[in-house]
């Protein structure tokens, strides 16, 4: 793997950027790789569409912008509509199955449906759906290790919420492993 691009999409308020940040941090700090995270969003302070791109590479990353994602993680219908067909042929797609109706997807890529929001709601905090998603991602996509991700989460979430977030991560990871197994 010399350069991999992960794109996480959703709307403002879902913690999309934080998810991208944690992924990037896991790679850049806790693995011996390079990572760059960029983002884009609309003019809205909340509720607008929102994308986080993470480039992961073994070498220095010159060009820092996302081009064609190898992993696409989508947490809103809008994000799906705008992004689903701009992906690499061997890319994988992960969607939050409660938020995204992926039936319009026509390509041959592997599509994973993660019940991230549902799991988060079960944990009592809808807001950790992004972390569940990260767990799922760690399990199904070959971009980051379980360990590095865990460390990065512990570093990045607010004090006092570590346990909840770790639980969310593990739940997502588990689900992901199961999905791959299936």
């Amino acid at each position, binding site marked *: 793997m010399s350069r991999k691009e992960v794109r996480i999409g959703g*709307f403002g308020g879902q913690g999309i950027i934080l998810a991208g940040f944690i992924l990037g941090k896991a790679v850049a700090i806790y693995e011996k790789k390079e990572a760059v995270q960029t983002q884009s969003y609309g003019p809205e302070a909340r*509720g607008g569409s929102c994308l986080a791109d993470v480039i992961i590479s073994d070498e220095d990353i010159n060009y820092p912008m996302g081009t064609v994602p190898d992993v696409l993680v989508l947490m*809103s*219908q809008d994000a799906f509509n705008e992004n689903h067909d701009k992906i690499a042929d061997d890319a994988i797609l992960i969607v939050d199955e409660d938020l995204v109706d992926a039936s319009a997807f026509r390509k041959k890529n592997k599509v994973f449906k993660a019940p991230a929001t549902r799991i988060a709601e079960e944990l009592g905090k809808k807001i950790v759906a992004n972390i569940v998603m990260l767990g799922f991602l760690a399990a199904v996509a070959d971009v980051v290790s379980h360990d590095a991700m865990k460390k990065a989460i512990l570093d990045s979430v607010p004090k006092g919420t570590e346990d909840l977030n770790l639980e969310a991560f593990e739940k997502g990871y588990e689900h992901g492993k199961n999905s791959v197994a299936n």
Partner: protein
Amino acid sequence: MKYWRRPLDKDEIKTPKGHIYLIPDRCKGCGFCIEFCPKGVLEESKEINKKGYHLPKIADGKEDDCINCNFCMLICPEFAIYTEEGE
């Protein structure tokens, strides 16, 4: 037919009836109309719109309670709800 612009606090008006309309895709589920309807006509429904917001609905047994006071229209930040004089 701008019923909604009638001077509403004119004395002679006695409990007019109102008919409520909603433009669902505009609603952002802030709950203002529900909370501040003087007649308590509205409540949150389970229905969500495209963006995932819970829409208001008419509360059980309040179907005829709207007095067309127009406050929901005024306070709705999304131009999503309004009323017309009912018959």
